[in-house]
């Protein structure tokens, strides 16, 4: 399952966090600090997976934002990459060529979209259209 989702800007600013496993506030900051240290320093042409404390973190950079998802060792990395891409596409569709600022000022909407996409750390809605429709309906 997905343990958490992070959106980190290139400067290390956190843009969105969603925790599906219990982490205390302290652990959260620590996780983010550690991971942004690892991920932001990785070069552009490297693979998108990082092994981290027995978990795997799949990340992908879109413009200035890193989308990171932490998954179990045996989860499928490519699938998660697709979920990330999926999420980005939905955001894009919703905001109309999404940019970091959209997410900054509409952080709650980014959350709602994510909630439609994932529940309890699992993908729940594979259809982009449906998510978009649902979000606009709310």
């Amino acid at each position, binding site marked *: *399952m997905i343990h958490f989702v992070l959106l980190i800007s290139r400067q290390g600013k*956190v*843009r*969105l*966090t969603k925790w*599906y496993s*219990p982490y*205390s*506030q302290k652990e*959260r*900051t620590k996780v983010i600090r550690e991971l942004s240290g690892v991920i932001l320093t990785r*070069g552009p*042409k*490297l*693979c*998108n*997976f*990082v*092994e981290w404390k027995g978990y795997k973190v799949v990340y992908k950079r879109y413009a200035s934002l890193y989308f990171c998802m932490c998954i*179990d060792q*045996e*989860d*499928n*990395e*490519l*699938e998660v*990459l*697709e979920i990330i891409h999926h999420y980005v596409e939905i955001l894009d569709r919703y905001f109309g060529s999404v940019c970091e600022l959209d997410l*900054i*000022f509409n*952080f*709650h909407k980014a*959350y*709602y979209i994510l*909630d439609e996409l994932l*529940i*309890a*750390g*699992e*993908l*729940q*809605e*594979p*259809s982009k259209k*449906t998510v978009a429709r*649902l979000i606009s*309906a*709310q």
Partner: protein
Amino acid sequence: MAGGTSSIMETLFQRTLDDMIKGLRLQLIGESAFVSKALDEIRREVKSTDPSTKSTALHKLSYLASLHFHDMSWAAFHVVEVMSSSRFSYKRIGYHAASLSFNDDTPVLLLITNQLRKDLGSTNEFEVSLALECLSRIATADLARDLTPEIFTLLSTTKLFVRKKAIGVVLRLFAKYPDAVRVCFKRLVENLDSSDPQILSAVVSVFCELASRDPGSYLPLAPEFYRILVDSKNNWVLIKVLKIFAKLAPLEPRLAKRVVEPICDHLRRTGAKSLMFECVRTVVSSFSEYESAAKLAVVKIRELLVDDDPNLKYLGLQALSIVAPKHLWAVLENKEFVIKSLSDGDPNIKTESLRLVMAMVSETNVVEIARVLVNYSLKSDPEFCNEILGSILSTCSRNVYEIIIDFDWYVSLIGEMSRIPHCQKGDEIENQLIDIGMRVQDVRPKLVRVARDLLIDPALLGNPFLHKILSAAAWVSGEYVEFSRNPFELMQAIFQPRTSLLPLSVMAVYIHSAFKVLIFCLHCYILQRESITSSCPENLVLGVSESVLKREMPEDSGLIRTTCEALPVQGDKGFNRRASNQSSEVFSVENGGDRTINHGQTSTPNFSEKSSFTYESIVKLINLVELAMGPCMGSHDVEVLERARNLLCFIEVIKGEITECLEHKEKKKESEEMKASEIIKLMSDAFSEELGPVSLSAQKRVPIPEGLELKESLDDLGTICADIQVPPSNDSNLFSLGSPYNGEEVGVSASELESKEESEPSNEATALLTDHRKRHGLYYLPSEKNEIVPNDYPPANDPKLRDNLNNDTEDLVKLTEQSLVTNKKPNHAKPRPVVVKLDERDVVTITAKRPEPNDNLLSGAVREVLLGSDTRTTTSQHNPPDKASSKRKGKEKLNVDPSSKLKEDLGDSEKPDHENPSSRRSKHRTHGKERRQKSPSKPAEERENNGQKGKQKSSHRARHKAQERADAPLNAVSQTPVIPDFLL
């Protein structure tokens, strides 16, 4: 205080989230001040009675909490208030805040049960979805228990949007409240039949997650998963199903046979890399015994490897490393690519390929591979360099240097690795140098040479990571000084000025090694001189008297050779010392023609002419030591101080006599001379005692002396002699004098230690004993313990190295496999030197079973449901009759708190619902066959609508089954009581 006007004012002039974010972004430096000001505002606003103000405040707070990590637990109550707001937009803010900030310890959770229940039953599906999302995040055991009925209802709602979320929530529900399984599981299973892709995706995800925790319980559902695997076109779903099968297949061989073909089909057909990779991974991890599937998978892996995408490359390597243990050929096929990846830009890929390279290592190619790797390590960055070195070391030392044939090569490789500038593997190398020294007798001359090269190089002293290596080198040089070509040079190396850079603990080892070297030199010198001055019988006597040291070691009997320390002296020059065997020593000092008895050893270092011991050289040596020891006398470190003092005192004792008797060479002051040489001899004998590795279980083999009560509690003893040191502690002192590894290595309890002490005879020379002690303190080597153990105690060897611990299980397996095989490998051009190993029967099997307590309840419940009423699921193929029973079961539970919807369905209330589940289960088990036959008819009455279908299906099934059951292997059934016939 907040009157009507102020509230309006607040509303009007409240900063919105946008305002706050804008403000925050303007703050370049004083962000924290701004935030605390905003927090103050929020604190005030959130208390407002106006819902808009309140929710906006909460919204802002959630922003700060989620992105700036400010604590918002104080606002929990306000969150609940906003959650209960009737307007959706406010409610949403409230729920969002709740799922963000609530945890199991949040006190107000008790207050939201009813709110959640209300929202879960709401007609607005978005409200329901909000509540579900929140529940999936915050559900506690209490909440889960209280809301299970609601979730149960939602699991079969017609609103797909809600149902899929309810399915997701089940995961949390089960985790928190395993009893929910009894209620919800059936409906969850029903959803597997859903034709809606969303529902299917959700439910398969849930099962994937559940199965990953406890695969065994879900075997009965295999037919459903199989159907999905064959029918589904949705990659998301397929990936999850594959994962499930990867978990289930190892448990049930017949299942594997059945699913391997469809998986291969997907593998061939699919264009999606993620699905393809999942197929590959499933095949290599769970179906690798199917040759054709494995081959196909390897072909696909190759495709991944040659792809430009680093992700695929990485995953390809990863898949290879999964396949490596079973199909090494797959790795060898891609060898070139793997080696090439060692220089990839991506550290992950490099690490992965390193792992693979290490998997390829065998005794035939270890030299070649190590060469390649060392070259790579020279080129790569420090981190990866050390990773390479670490894996070389651990691979080569695996299973007591199993793959090493040429130890001379390996020892020089270690020497070479130590000199790699980035090398930080000091500890590891230290362990191995010493370990090899103790285990492999034939390599000692080479080892000493390598150690000397390390010691002598002043450049190495500057690198703190190498200090450990130097300490090992010093120890080796001291311990096996008899192989040294030039002890004087060694002494100079040990006392070279830059040794002041060493840490004190290493310095202590240095000093003790110097002590050994000095003793050796003096000993040789005296013997040499004696043999010139006299062919006196007393020397012989003296020599023979040492033979009391001889010990029989039954275990190593194959290795035992009578060792001679023969000192054939030719003239006054070149002398020849032949020394030491694995485990026993006989010192016999002989003269003249009667020289070496033993020719077991081939390596007999000769001291060249120049290094023979003359009076001048000995005096120089002594002076050198004295000079070097001077500063150490002021050391703050006890170890260093004490050893230096020992050394100096020793010099003090012998110095006079040495010089004196030399002066009176002609006069032959026998008595005095004897005194000095006796001391030296004694010391020398003490030092030439062989050290060997110790078995993990050595302690256990000590026979318990009669009259020793091991079981008796020693607690009382503690009170009796509270201030006295009780024997056990004394004892452990003796063994672990400064040896931190002691406990870890042997894992002895106090009583065992005591037994050891008890069995320790006092016949050993006290001098010897003290010396051993000293040595223990000096070098923290657990293996030295066996020096202390008494004669009746068989010497044992350490089956595995300390550094090898992570390979434990692997090693254990191998060791047991080898238990009957001799250690020597016959067909090598160069015979492999004997590596001291311990007999394998001593290996203590460490069960690496990890308990999984938190899943017990859950899997118990799942099993109960599946085994209980699913005997029919399995036999009748999850068709309607089974559903009926599931419904019934759910209702049974729900009779306690009935929901209106359920009551409608409750047609069968008079059915024997009150049987308790366990009796039902047992019944199903015992009468499985009859049940199956009956099942189509009886439950079909309960559910007419689909009973018809079920009848057909199951009767077909039964027939099908009946014919197949005949030739089904019976043994598999015992393993999994409820095996779907379908799989047969």
